[in-house]
């Protein structure tokens, strides 16, 4: 864990390699899972997976051995429909066996089609309905602040999720209580359920909204691991932090990128093969 200090270049380079490998392996798992289960939301998972990979590779203080520690870092995937990204990363980090991914969405499986915590080590909150992760996460940080317990909470949200009223209630609450170990990462891929966020319900000027609510705001390329890592290293200053991670829905697979269609369509076998071919030939 490297909060509040600048990591040296060699460590940074090493970390970037670890998280890039993790993200690449997770992308393969995401494609395989959504193909096998004929499941939706492959584009959403490919959009968010780099953020998860950075947090779980080495940055956040959370691993299979400390999942019950009171001062662990908490990662909440509030956009629960991108569950395959979280499941893939957790499995690759050995929170649970890889076979669970193969059973994704089958009868009696541990892993369901939105993030479920009950049977899954490392998952902090069951999500699926948008707008729950941030207030839940701020509750954790408010308690930690009151009882002097260390640890951060990272809540990963979609940009469409920022339509929900609880996002802005929580933005008020987190600022009011000065929860400076609370991080929101918005997966800003500009696409929500039926089209672009700006055509559906405009969010811009997005950064200034968060600033007006009293938050630190950092805008990064949400697929650039070093930029993400830098954003999380912001010095603690009494304010919560919103990282606007500019992303591409479907990132990494050219025929899926930036298309609403892949919010819904499961990859066919041919899609899967084409996608895996791209991943094997490209360095992300």
């Amino acid at each position, binding site marked *: 864990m490297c909060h509040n200090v600048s990591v040296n270049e060699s460590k940074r380079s090493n970390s970037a390699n670890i998280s890039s490998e993790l993200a690449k392996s997770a992308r393969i798992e995401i494609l395989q899972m959504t193909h096998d289960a004929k499941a939706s939301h492959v584009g959403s998972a490919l959009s968010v997976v780099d953020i998860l990979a950075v947090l779980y590779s080495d940055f956040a203080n959370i691993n299979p051995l400390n999942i019950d520690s009171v001062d662990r870092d908490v990662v909440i995937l509030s956009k629960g429909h991108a569950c395959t990204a979280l499941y893939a990363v957790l499995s690759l980090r050995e929170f649970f066996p890889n076979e669970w991914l193969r059973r994704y969405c089958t009868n009696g499986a541990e892993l369901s089609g939105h993030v479920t915590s009950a049977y899954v080590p490392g998952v902090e*909150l069951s999500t699926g309905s948008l707008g729950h992760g*941030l207030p839940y996460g701020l509750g954790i940080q408010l308690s930690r602040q009151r009882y002097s317990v260390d640890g951060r909470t990272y809540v990963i949200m979609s940009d469409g999720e920022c339509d929900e009223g609880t996002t802005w209630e929580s933005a008020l609450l987190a600022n009011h209580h000065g929860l400076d170990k609370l991080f929101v990462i918005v997966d800003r891929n500009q696409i929500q359920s039926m089209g672009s966020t700006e055509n559906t319900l405009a969010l811009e000027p997005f950064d200034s909204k968060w600033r007006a609510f009293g938050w630190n705001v950092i805008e990064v390329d949400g697929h650039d691991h070093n930029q993400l890592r830098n954003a999380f290293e912001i010095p603690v200053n009494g304010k919560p932090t919103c990282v606007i991670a500019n992303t591409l829905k479907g990132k990494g697979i050219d025929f899926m990128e930036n298309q609403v269609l892949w919010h819904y369509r499961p990859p066919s076998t041919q899609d899967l093969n084409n996608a895996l071919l791209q991943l094997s030939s490209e360095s992300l």
Partner: protein
Amino acid sequence: MRNSFVDALYEEAKRDENIILITGDLGYQLFDKFADNLPKQFINAGLTEQSMMSMAAGIASTGKRVFVYSIANFSTLRCLEQIRNDVCYMNKSVVIVSVGSGFAYGTLGYSHHATEDIAIMRSLPNMEVVSPCDKFEADVLTRMISHTQRPTYLRLGKAGEPDLHSNYPTMVFGKFAELTSGSDGYIFFTGSIGLVALDAKRELENLGKSVSIISVPFISQLDEEYLQKISTSKPIVVLEEHGKRGGLGSAFLEKFNELGIRADITHIAASQEEISLTGSQDYLREMNGISTKNIVAVFR
């Protein structure tokens, strides 16, 4: 009932710093002592009922017992999905406290009438619905639920209701609390509406009849042992200050069916034929068919 709750919770929270109280900006002056003396354990979340409820679940996930307080519909229906997903699905140690059961806030209008809350809260998995009838039950039940972990709904009246018990009753999870025992039938009730049951009892005594009056403080788990011993040939009234659909009456019918008890139940609850009526609690009870007269008629 409300003051009794706050006093009991304050005492329990003084002894256990893992008890936290969140209010949705309601309870003017009510929480002053709590907030002044236990500031670490008190949060006014402002008017953010939905976030407040998810936040409560998040706090509970750090090992706390979290009480969330507001007027009935604001702490229940306004944030129902947060209760369903973050409290019940996650099975977190949150107590949802509502004040203003039934028509307690009669003149404030239907927005403030709690007439569907039992139905909805008792339909949620993992949820324990707890409904005291007076300040004595409110005190005892508050202390009991302060030390459990289950998602719980505590349904309070307001302040200053008449006492129905004469002292602090001995209470056990899942058990009824009998106020009086009689031989000519039963009146099961929940909440402060028990006052009307006691009025009916006195009128029936003038007619030479005695009835059992039974408070039902635990609605999610009706007292099967008691129910299996009742004499089903006697009149049975189920009385509640709540709409007819889904509340205590429905819970009784479901339980009787499950236990194979064949009996006629007369359900006296709010007819809700005209929900926009304005008036006092007594007036609205009467206009909704919840009256001493209607109870007495069952036993004539």
